[in-house]
């Protein structure tokens, strides 16, 4: 059985937020909730990179470990899903998740947390597959239709990849090899300048101050 994974290639992501919009539209996600977000580090500096993140469907999921009502389950494709009928909106999963994936719509008088919402890898939820209830609570079940998550399908630069872990890993490996080859063609100096997250100048300075 395939094991589903996301991969975001920071060398390709151009922070267009297409994936965020695609997800919100396809799944009709509740107000105030974004299941996916694009984070840019070193915005406007040299070495700036952007990454699109959502639930990474952990093999040993921390969210599931801390949930007081044990409402998470992993599908046979390795997708981590949860049952909104059981969730009490306590927020513990959000504290444990490495990627801040669980989101909470505001609910009730004091804007307290509603039931948790997160990326489902476009695989719906525990309701009957393709039912109206499933769509209302969890969004589209594209996996059941033989399609991959829309965020990745939509990605213009193919930075965001989704699918069988082995296939994704192969594609990425190939990219790394090609990049190494092209930078070798441009010379080692270029490679050093271009891929470093910290500019050469700063590096030299720190080294100097260390003596």
């Amino acid at each position, binding site marked *: 059985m395939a094991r589903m994974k996301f991969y975001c290639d920071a060398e390709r992501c151009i922070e267009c937020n297409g994936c965020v919009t695609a997800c919100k539209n396809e799944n009709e996600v509740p107000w105030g909730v974004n299941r996916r977000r*694009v984070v840019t580090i070193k915005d406007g500096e040299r070495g700036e990179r952007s990454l699109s*993140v959502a639930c990474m469907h952990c093999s040993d999921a921390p969210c599931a470990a*801390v949930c007081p009502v044990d409402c998470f389950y992993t599908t046979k494709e390795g997708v981590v899903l949860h049952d909104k009928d059981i969730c009490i*909106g306590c927020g513990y999963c*959000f504290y*444990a998740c*490495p990627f801040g994936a669980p989101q909470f719509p505001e609910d009730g008088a004091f804007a*307290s*947390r509603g039931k948790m919402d997160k990326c489902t890898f476009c695989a719906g939820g525990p309701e009957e597959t393709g039912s109206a209830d499933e769509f209302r609570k969890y969004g589209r079940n594209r996996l059941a239709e033989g399609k991959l998550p829309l965020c990745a399908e939509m990605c213009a630069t193919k930075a965001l990849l989704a699918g069988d872990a082995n296939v994704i890993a192969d594609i990425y490996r190939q990219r790394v090899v090609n990049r190494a080859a092209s930078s070798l063609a441009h010379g080692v100096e270029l490679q050093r300048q271009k891929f470093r997250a910290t500019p050469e100048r700063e590096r030299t300075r720190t080294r100097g101050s260390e003596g």
Partner: protein
Amino acid sequence: MRHWWVWVWLCLGATLFPPVHAAGPSTDKVLNPGAELWNEVRGRQAAPATTQVQGRDSQVLVNEWGEHFRDYRRQRFVRYSGYLLAGVVSLLLLYHLLHGGLEVTESGRKVLRFELTERIVHWLLAGVFLLLTVTGVVLAFGRFVVLPWSGPEVFAVIASASKEGHNLFGPLFIVALLWFFVLFVGRNLPRLVDIYWLIRAGGMLGGGHPAAGFFNGGEKIWFWILTIGGLAVSTSGVVLDFPALVEGRNPLVLALVVHGIAAVVLIAASFGHMYLGTLGVKGSLEGMKSGLVDEAWAHAHHVLWYEELNRKAQAESSAREQGQ
């Protein structure tokens, strides 16, 4: 190989003091761009990254506390509080089986111990406390002790009722706690006799009852555990109830940790209090129910208070006589 130990020292030296050139950065080392990027991501928790999405901690790419929280909750909090609570219950049970409760032969004459307001506030606080304990325990341990035999559907109802109930009664607890404090703090200030009482463990080590005032040393300790622990659960509870008060996720994790530890300490201490108030010292419960206690009970457990009562009564009657 007569000098094998020379080799040992050389190897040790090489590991402890590596050659200088290996430690310094080499100019022609090519860094792995992927690894560099992730080092930046993980090390940049404090420095701002940016995102278009506006949510709690949305700009944080990797949540560094996540694994600590998971480890704390599963490996420490749930386990050790389980041990503590089970341990306290078994100790109390053991004590009761071996020693039994204290009892005094009643004299039949009653004295007033608690006014009506005092009793109402006590039971308000106790009632809310019990509700918060039951609902809080469901949140913390229900997954391990209730869910296995109730099944997920039934547990979902119990758990969400617990959460809603806990969130609603929390603020009431704060009101009751403050009111209780105002009513009782005067009689709970530490005195020298309390230390003597505590050294003698309230007479549990034998040698009869050590003297005590209105409240004895043990009761005063419970009062202060309740006050300090109560303030801790209240402040952290308010943060958990109204997450909008704080920014980001770490203050909430901190509040939850403080809340859990303080709550478990309070619950463990309350077991002791409830045991002593009912089975442990017979006649105590009567005082909190009707307000009246037997004179013999007052003399046995709170002799300094009893003497003071008598002195006051005498002063009053002589004043009345003089007035006539």
